[in-house]
């Protein structure tokens, strides 16, 4: 990402003493490391296509970030995912409170992880991948109102963003690594998407879910939500989506499905 220092500076571009650089091939990771190691208090405006974002550096950390889509960690991670564009120091106003508590190394790691996941998804596009299901409407997913209050209370949107980022990147990734196979089947039993060797899993999930519904009906328990089975060599989770589709995954026996349950609202 080259730094922009032409005459087309934005109105709030900050003019200060020192060298002006024009670096081609520099990445935002380079920028972050440079700014954080310098320890300066500075706001950097980053442009990438039509996107614009701001990173706020102070005391060797990124303490705040703003993009069109969010504030805080979410914005920082979004900006750090941009592949090309320009950056420049600017005089944007500082917030009353910091919105980022993670250190810059962690942000760069998360950003790299997101890039890897994105690349894997792109490489697998056209293949039969399983998107992780969201929670049923009846069981609310964690929202800012249901989540515990943050220890530091910056802007409310950044609170939810931080938690969202940590769930998607830090918590889900290790859990997904333990998944051996996953499959989504529609109400007719057709495989909508799958991952791994999910041939038998789809049949097992479809029949087991039906039997569980019938058992529930017999005992007066309606509305099957999920089935979790612990076996000697594996763990199986079957989840009935609001759409009527059935999502199933098979994981290692020692897999910690806590994050899955949380994500599904179980």
């Amino acid at each position, binding site marked *: 990402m080259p730094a922009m220092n032409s005459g087309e500076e934005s109105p709030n571009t900050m003019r200060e003493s020192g060298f002006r650089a024009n670096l081609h091939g520099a990445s935002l990771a380079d920028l972050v490391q440079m700014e954080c190691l310098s320890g300066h208090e500075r706001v950097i405006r980053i442009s990438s296509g039509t996107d614009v974002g701001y990173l706020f550096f102070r005391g060797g950390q990124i303490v705040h970030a703003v993009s069109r889509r969010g504030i805080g960690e979410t914005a920082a991670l979004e900006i750090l995912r941009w592949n090309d564009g320009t950056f420049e120091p600017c005089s944007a106003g500082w917030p009353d409170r910091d919105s980022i508590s993670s250190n810059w190394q962690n942000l760069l790691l998360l950003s790299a992880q997101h890039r890897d996941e994105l690349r894997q998804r792109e490489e697998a596009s056209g293949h039969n991948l399983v998107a992780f299901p969201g929670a049923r409407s*009846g069981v609310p997913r964690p929202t800012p109102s249901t989540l515990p209050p943050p220890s530091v209370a910056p802007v409310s949107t950044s609170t939810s963003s931080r938690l969202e980022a940590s769930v998607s990147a830090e918590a889900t990734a290790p859990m997904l690594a333990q998944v051996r196979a996953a499959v989504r089947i529609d109400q007719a039993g057709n495989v909508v998407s799958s991952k791994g060797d999910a041939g*038998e899993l789809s049949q*097992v999930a479809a*029949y*087991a879910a039906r*039997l*569980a519904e*019938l*058992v*529930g009906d*017999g*005992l007066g*328990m*309606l*509305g*099957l*939500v*999920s*089935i*979790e*089975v*612990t*076996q*000697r*060599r*594996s763990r*199986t989770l079957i989840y009935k989506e609001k759409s009527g589709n059935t999502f199933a995954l098979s994981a290692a026996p020692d897999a910690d499905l806590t994050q899955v349950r949380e994500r599904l609202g*179980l």
Partner: protein
Amino acid sequence: MSADGISRALSALRDVAGVHGSFVLKPSGELLGKDLPAVFHDELFVEVGARLSRFVETMAADGDEVSSAVLRFDEHRLYVSRFTHGLLAVIAANEINAAALRMALTLTTRRLEPEILALMTNPPPPVVSTPSPSMTPPPVSVAGSHGVPRTYRGRVLTS
């Protein structure tokens, strides 16, 4: 151990708040005992037991035996614990201390298993049931008997 004895053993599970009741099945799904409100009559478990047994078989279709399962419904959960000679199932509310229930299940299973084994190897003598009045077939009408009109193919004969 009698069915009453099994029920007594199962009743210990109710110590865990949120447990509505429980039942024990043979691996084949036949009901061995239950500790449930009367509304859960035995006939109910002919189908429920068979289906739950098939459910466990299905999950173990690839040879990976089931240890336990949790079936979550909108307002209830069904915990199923498999042991050597049967299945123990617990009907519970969604808000339940799962750790406490797991411990209670372990203890109850330990208590039930040898007794169920004994029950299966020495089954009680079959109970000879006497037909209840409602089960007694109606008296066969004898054509022309006193006070009973004569009929032919359901129609009362007038002559």
